[in-house]
């Protein structure tokens, strides 16, 4: 999927300025940015891609916006439950039992609505799935469940989030600022652009930050991304 030189204006003011980006199947991407940098506007443009010649899509792409409205009268209908595979139905049953499936989606709890939004991606049979902030609502257990389900089903995720700790789970990273792409590349190489990220007000994941600072004192010589490796290097 490619975006070539996309600009969008709202009330004559530019929201996105000459955005060019590519998203590839199999490469999970973490997309973050400063406040009002155009992240959600970009997702909305991808969702309404038929309005923009600058967006070229091959295959199925789905976009899950954080405050999406439910249009159907039951959870079951919203999910197109009976058209889904057995595996997908089993996954959904962990969260919505037969009684819940008959409920109106708008009557679900706040947390269940966020889970339902994520589950609606199944009916779209997407190969690349754009998720706007939804992962940040999930508890650790449910987050792991969704991540592994998408991975097992070869669904590539582009996560829009402010939770920088999550970035390390993604191969590629894009940072937006004032409607433009400020930097993009392999996640660790982007995170090592410490000065640029600091200028944008974007922090580093704890282990990257700790590694860089300890490296500058000559206490370690590499980047260590988990507690075992980091502690193992410091206290051999």
């Amino acid at each position, binding site marked *: 999927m490619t975006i070539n030189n996309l600009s969008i204006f709202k009330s004559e003011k530019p929201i996105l300025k000459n955005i060019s980006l590519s998203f590839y199947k199999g490469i999970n991407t973490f997309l973050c940015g400063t406040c*009002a940098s155009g992240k959600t506007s970009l997702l909305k443009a991808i969702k309404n891609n038929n309005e923009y010649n600058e967006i070229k899509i091959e295959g199925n792409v789905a976009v899950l916006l954080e405050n999406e409205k439910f249009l159907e009268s039951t959870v079951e209908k919203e999910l197109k439950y009976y058209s889904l595979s057995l595996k997908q139905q089993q996954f959904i049953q962990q969260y919505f039992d037969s009684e819940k499936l008959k409920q109106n989606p708008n009557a679900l709890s706040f947390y269940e609505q966020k889970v339902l939004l994520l589950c609606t991606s199944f009916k779209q049979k997407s190969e690349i799935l754009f998720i706007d902030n939804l992962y940040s609502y999930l508890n650790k257990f*449910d987050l792991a469940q969704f991540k592994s389900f998408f991975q097992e089903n070869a669904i590539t995720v582009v996560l829009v989030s402010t939770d*920088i700790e999550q970035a390390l789970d993604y191969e590629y990273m894009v940072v937006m600022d004032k409607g433009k792409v400020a930097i993009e590349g392999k996640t660790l190489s982007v995170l090592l652009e410490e000065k640029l990220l600091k200028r944008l007000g974007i922090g580093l994941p704890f282990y990257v930050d700790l590694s860089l600072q300890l490296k500058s004192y000559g*206490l370690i010589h590499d980047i260590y991304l988990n507690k075992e490796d980091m502690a193992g290097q410091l206290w051999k």
Partner: protein
Amino acid sequence: MEISTYIKKEKINAIHSDKDIYDKNYVQVRQNYKNQTVTEYIVEKTNCTEERMLSSFRLVNLEKDIVYKNMMDLSSSEKIKVELAIPLILNEEQIVLYYFDLYFMEKDLLFFKKLFCKLVKKYHKTIVLIQSKFSFTFDFADFFLFYSDEDHIETFEKNELFQIEFENSVLGVPPILMFIKYVNHSKKKIGNYTDIKELIKEIYREV
């Protein structure tokens, strides 16, 4: 006992839960905004003067010219700032924020941490932050409530955080906390820090 009975007045309270404790009156980005300007929206909610609105906007770091923008055209971070301005205009004693940190990166989060501390110390407000992760709150909240159901509410003061057993918790735990607990358990006794700079100083002294 209701969770609200645990809230400590004139403190920053952090409620972390894997259950739903949603209330439509909390400070949060709404699902539906009408086609109206920010001024119209604020006046409808608070019936305040322009001067009062602008002073609250300054407090939450919103620029003056936002008043002419349409609510539907705002970014999520601008919307949540407008929502936070409302209880400040109304001078509410208690402000409850729902998943507030989702809309901001580090620099802005630091700004709001300072603002919440100021609201408590200078204006005697009670702040309640509700979210599943506590990476945002652990280094500045005064009081923590971990809530899974009404029969199981655990409360902790700031200095008790390092005694909590998180390994099997479904809550998102700050990596600095997990790292220190791991080092203390398997390598060497080090101090309990919430600030990475303080942790680095100790590592520098010890390694």
